């Protein structure tokens, strides 16, 4: 018994060391990639803009300046005001907090749901696996935005409900990836060795599966953050989604395009640009993670 434990430990320490060395090599590859630097820089800018911005810029987002309605940028309002005289810059700062929070949370919750689903499907196998994967096909047949609009029109969601309903329409991709990875890991020698030594399901899960599926999960989640920001902004743009009493980027854009015939460019370009920047940042970062974690992609352009 004690010998077995020792063997198990040695094997695991060896593997853990290997993983640690592997990880640092991946991180070095990651930071050498200009895409990674650009992605981190863009996302850092958005986070600072949304959370640190209001610390320095005190104009409240909902306060209507009745003397300056639909005003182009002036010193008092650096990005102008909208149709009721609310300050665009502070709307974008506060709106950024909500848009980024909902996007990040929805992507993470969706990945957790998907990872667990894929793991259960692969581990149980047999007919349950078939049914679970068939269910994934079915939910993918209806494009997520249509399901979201239907659920939204039934529920009138608050931000927390919004996170939940976006995540339950965006977990399928990661479920498929994790299932595929676990199916191939199950038959690998090091997992069989661990199992033969009597390692429990939990231990195999935490020590062997998780480190190996973490790369794809991080890559996928990074892309999902951008996707979720696009989705939540799109729903607000359609007049649904997040409650309209708090600013968010999609809502600002939707309010802005109503004034396109008045040539109110300051209402239309800045909110769209914020959404594009968050998409660019997460796409750059996702590609950089992908290139770093997937050895086949290293050194490819």
């Amino acid at each position: 018994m004690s010998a077995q434990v020792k063997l198990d430990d040695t094997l695991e320490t060896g593997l853990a060391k290997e993983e640690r060395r592997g990880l640092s090599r991946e991180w070095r590859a990651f930071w050498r990639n200009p895409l990674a630097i650009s992605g981190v820089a863009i996302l850092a800018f958005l986070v600072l803009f949304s959370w640190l911005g209001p610390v320095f810029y005190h104009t409240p987002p909902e306060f209507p300046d009745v003397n300056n309605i639909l005003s182009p940028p002036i010193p008092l309002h650096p990005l102008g005001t909208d149709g009721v005289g609310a300050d665009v810059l502070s709307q974008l700062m506060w709106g950024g907090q909500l848009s980024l929070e909902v996007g990040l949370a929805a992507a993470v919750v969706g990945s957790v749901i998907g990872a667990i689903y894929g793991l259960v499907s692969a581990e149980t196998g047999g007919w349950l696996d078939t049914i679970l994967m068939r269910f994934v096909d079915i939910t993918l047949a209806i494009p997520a935005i249509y399901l979201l609009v239907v659920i939204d029109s039934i529920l009138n969601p608050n931000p927390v409900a919004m996170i939940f309903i976006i995540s339950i329409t965006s977990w399928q991709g990661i479920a498929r990836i994790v299932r595929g990875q676990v199916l191939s890991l199950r038959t690998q020698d090091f997992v069989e060795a661990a199992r033969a030594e009597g390692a429990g399901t939990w231990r195999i899960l935490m020590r062997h599966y998780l480190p190996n599926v973490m790369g794809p999960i991080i890559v996928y989640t990074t892309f999902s953050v951008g996707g979720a920001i696009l989705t939540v902004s799109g729903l607000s743009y359609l007049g649904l989604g997040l409650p309209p009493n708090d600013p968010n980027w999609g809502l600002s854009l939707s309010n802005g395009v109503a004034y396109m015939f008045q040539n109110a460019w300051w209402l239309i370009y800045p909110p769209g640009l914020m959404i594009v920047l968050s998409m660019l940042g997460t796409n750059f970062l996702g590609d950089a993670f992908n290139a770093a974690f997937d050895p086949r992609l290293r050194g490819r352009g």
Partner: protein
Amino acid sequence: MLKYVVRRIIESIPTLIGISIITFILMHLVPGNPALVMLGSHATQANIAALDHQLGLDKPVYVQYLLWAWQLLHGNLGTSFSTNQPVTQMVWQALPHTLSIVGISTVLAYVIAIVQGIYQAKNKGSIADNTVTSVGYFLYSMPIYWLGNLFIIWFAIALPIFPPGGISDPGQSMNFVVWFSHMSLPVIALTLVTVAFWGRFMRQSVIDTLVQDYIRTARAKGLSERVVLYRHAFRNSLLPLITLFGFSFGGLLAGALFTEQVFNYPGMGLLFWQAALHRDYPTVLGTTMIIGITVILGNLLADLLYAVADPRIRYN
């Protein structure tokens, strides 16, 4: 080949049943009693019970599902709350508009993605390659509901080349020029965001193909670079693009929802969105069901095209 086609069609039946169940469940999550909605707030208890009976709402849920599915199989999607028209009729009017903008965008996106992919793969690492990649990143990150509105501002307001939306101007009779000019901006917007995704994919696909052994053999045989590229590499790098169509078809229909909303184009997306805003649930769920069926048929089409293009699939 026929055996494969039949098998693929049979395989898609459980998915169809699945989306009909999801739609049915969503219909039952809708707040409020349909009979009450139809009769208005002055309905008496007896009236509601009578209509419930007439609509079959007093039967067990699975019987209700079977009755509903039976109607669905006969092409009956119910009656719209807001227009009192049969939903099927509204769908039949809207679907051709959506299929034409999605269809034309798909063809255009394919052509551009293929040309772009081959050019970039051939000139990998050049300034042109990097420029196209950067533009692609930007377009790929562009929400179509923003891009569409910018197009209206640029090409319908600032430079009035195209109409800002709709399918024809009021009082205008329908002809090819009217149809084409109203469709241009929606199609260009949908094409650009699709190309951003497919072009990137095609570039990688050609790069991967160019390092294959049969390409080296073709070059070693002394074939010209032109023949190698267009006869050998091109055809083989097309295969992933067919799969990609299957993957992207749902995304194209999602893009159509926003495109039609932005350009006020009377397709499935606009019908669906307006019904959702008016809480017209029979129309919302009817269009959802048809969108789901369209996606499944699109995937089926992609699989069949793949089998035509790649003989290895058929004999599996």
